[in-house]
């Protein structure tokens, strides 16, 4: 027994020392002068365009810059988890990326966190920057007026509907609802004629995350005359009638079973079902989705469906009672940025610039169904002919809105999502959910940062 204890002790001591030595060895690996660039971006089973682009330009860049290695580090995760992993990697110099892919709505908050490098100097020497439209230039701008990120493209959102389903319900095509009630009328007509078809789905709940607000709630809210955020006063709007009306519309859709069953709607992967099963099988009348929709169905997409060009159509999402300007859309988009902790800022920027060059931006806009932000891409015939909907979705730019670009936004968005979930599951009434949202917003930003107008 005594002998065994001694033996155990020495084994323990020896292994601990080895482990400790291992720690220091791992820590000593980071020498700053190595010429390597770490590129971090998102890759999912339905989003591979950026991975393909980077894989394509990696040898090109390495050949042009001898001695430089480009390390591609795709993160396989949904949008929320991607941004969490990215933020965690930013905490340490050893894991922080040199170039990374970032959603525009997280930019301000990440600039505040000091994760993004100010690239004003690099842009000043880059003649292609003039090719980007003004909106694109503003998209990557921080509160201080400096530019921190270069957009890869933008998007708009509208109603995508199935022509066969609408025709079978006796609805005249092309369909363009003028008010919210027009949507409900069409959906009820589909429900009556085709009981096994989901008439009109709109995302709700926390599962679909930012999709719930961008492709559903904000189209409603911004068509009521109310907004989420008062840009003039820089305050968040609470107690608005528009917020309640929007929740009520969702409640109606779900309560009358015009949308998916709440249990399916709360599944984070419900959008895959929408694109991959419901629309191609003619089991869904319509939904609100982004201009990138064709990227899923076109050749090489995750849910190839050649007939989409015939079966699908785009309509503008209407305002509540047909108020001016007669439609609502939301825009977002993703950018490329240089990490603030990079050791090779100029080299990193060169890689970024290559990724958004005219040729590469054109390829990306076509393959990921983006709305081009470079004027020399937007005028390319191949871009305009990429799919039959380019003109339709580009028109939506006229009625589009942007999310409030403040650092509190993502928390507020989460509260909106929670409110929609409470309403469609029947856990709260519309008034209760709106009141809970008001309380939560005040808790996040403080009483002096909210307004009732």
């Amino acid at each position, binding site marked *: *027994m*005594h002998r065994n*204890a001694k033996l155990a*002790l*020495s084994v*323990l*001591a020896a292994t*601990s*020392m080895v*482990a*400790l030595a291992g720690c220091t060895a791992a820590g000593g690996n980071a020498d700053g002068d190595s010429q390597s660039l770490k590129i971090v971006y998102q890759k999912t089973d339905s989003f591979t365009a950026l991975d393909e682009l980077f894989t394509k330009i990696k040898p090109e860049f390495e050949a042009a810059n001898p001695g430089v290695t480009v390390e591609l580090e795709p993160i396989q995760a949904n949008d*929320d988890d991607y941004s*969490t992993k990215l*933020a*965690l990697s930013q905490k340490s110099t050893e894991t922080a990326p040199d170039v990374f892919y970032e959603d525009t709505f*997280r930019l301000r*908050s*990440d600039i*505040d*966190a*000091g*994760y993004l490098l100010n690239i004003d100097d690099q842009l000043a020497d880059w003649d292609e920057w003039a090719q980007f439209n003004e909106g694109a230039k503003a998209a990557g701008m921080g509160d201080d007026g400096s530019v921190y990120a270069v957009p890869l493209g933008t998007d708009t959102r509208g109603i995508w509907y199935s022509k066969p389903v609408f025709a079978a319900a006796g609805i005249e095509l092309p369909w363009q609802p003028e008010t919210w009630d027009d949507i409900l009328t069409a959906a009820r007509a589909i429900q009556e004629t085709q009981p096994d078809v989901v008439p009109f789905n709109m995302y709700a*709940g*926390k*599962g679909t995350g930012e999709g719930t607000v961008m492709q559903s709630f904000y189209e409603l809210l911004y068509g009521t005359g109310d907004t989420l955020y008062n840009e003039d006063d820089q305050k968040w709007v609470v107690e608005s009638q528009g917020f309640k009306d929007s929740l009520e519309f969702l409640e109606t859709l779900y309560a009358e079973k015009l949308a998916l*069953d*709440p*249990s*399916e709607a*709360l599944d*984070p992967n419900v959008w895959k079902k929408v694109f991959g099963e419901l629309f191609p099988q003619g089991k869904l009348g319509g939904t609100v989705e982004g201009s990138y929709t064709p990227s899923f169905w076109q050749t090489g997409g995750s849910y190839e469906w050649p007939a989409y060009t015939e079966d699908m159509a785009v309509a503008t999402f209407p305002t509540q009672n047909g108020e001016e300007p007669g439609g609502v859309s939301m825009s977002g988009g993703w950018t490329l940025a240089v990490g603030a902790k990079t050791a090779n800022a100029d080299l990193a920027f060169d890689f970024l610039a290559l990724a958004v060059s005219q040729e590469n931006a054109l390829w990306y806009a076509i393959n990921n169904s983006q709305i081009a932000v470079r004027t020399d891409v937007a005028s390319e015939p191949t871009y305009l002919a990429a799919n039959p909907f380019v003109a339709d979705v580009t028109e939506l730019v006229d009625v589009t809105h942007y999310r409030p670009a403040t*650092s*509190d936004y*993502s*928390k507020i968005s*989460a509260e909106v999502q*929670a409110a929609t*979930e*409470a309403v469609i*599951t029947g*856990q709260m009434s519309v008034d209760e959910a709106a009141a*809970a949202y008001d309380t939560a917003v005040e*808790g996040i930003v403080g009483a002096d940062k909210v307004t009732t107008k």
Partner: protein
Amino acid sequence: MTANTVSRPPRETVTGSGPSGSGPRRRPRGRTLTRVLPLAPAVVLLAIFLIGPVIWSFYGSFTDAALTGSSAQDPQWVGLDNYLTLFTDPVFPLSLWLTFVFVVASAIVGQNFLGLGIALLTNRASKVVSAVVGTAVVAAWVLPEIVAAFVAYAYFSEDGTLNQVLAAAGMTGPNWLYSFPMLSIILANAWRGTAFSMMVYRAALNDVPVEVTEAAMIDGADGIKRLTWITIPMIKNSIATNLMLITLQTLSVFTLIWVMTAGGPGNESTTLPIMAFQEAFKFGDIGYGTAIATVMLLIGAAFSLVYIRALRPEKV
């Protein structure tokens, strides 16, 4: 004693009674020091990897540390703000209650009683039956947690195994994960964790001397009496240790719930670990998340104290 230790190692491990080495002896001071010295690296490792994160988390709960925004760059000391927010957060009491229900139902009732029951039954069953049952139960336990979680998800989901079996019998099952989220995760956790209790109790039952049970039988005690008056008191220590371990394990179950329901629908299955994860990583509020983690740590510590108390009299 030494012979006992060698012949019945399982009991030693599960009851946690330390190695019975030579008793306290006086040693020269220098000698003690040289003997303690080789332990230093182990102590350093423990400090870095176990105590370090706990202290960091405790410290973090008094700051507004975040994943993004200006406080990610420069976290500020906010005193008890996170705890005040937590205690007024309407989700917190719900989450606390759900955690309590989850621990009591899936661990203390589910895993513990199922484990004891299976151990008692297989103890008397034929070797073949005992081996087959044991393997089936342990199979759930040896699966990596993420795999077990997906298996449970596939079983309970709307068009999963359970509903297909029900459909074959002419019944339409509900969407279990949506309509009965707590029941689903409780059953899943009981399924996954029963093996541990079963193995602990099997080992403990092997230690109950056959003579004692036989003597009771001759005295005319029936099965239930032998169980309550002989077997249970004799494995009391194992029961307490097992309860402590499974309670602490179940308190921190995350993957299983996250995969199956992600805390939903609404907050209907948001236990404390889910709530802490959501606050810290989904909403980026690390300070608030660590405050919840600290509360969980205190709850775990309280449970441990209760069980350690329960263990004590036997030792003296």
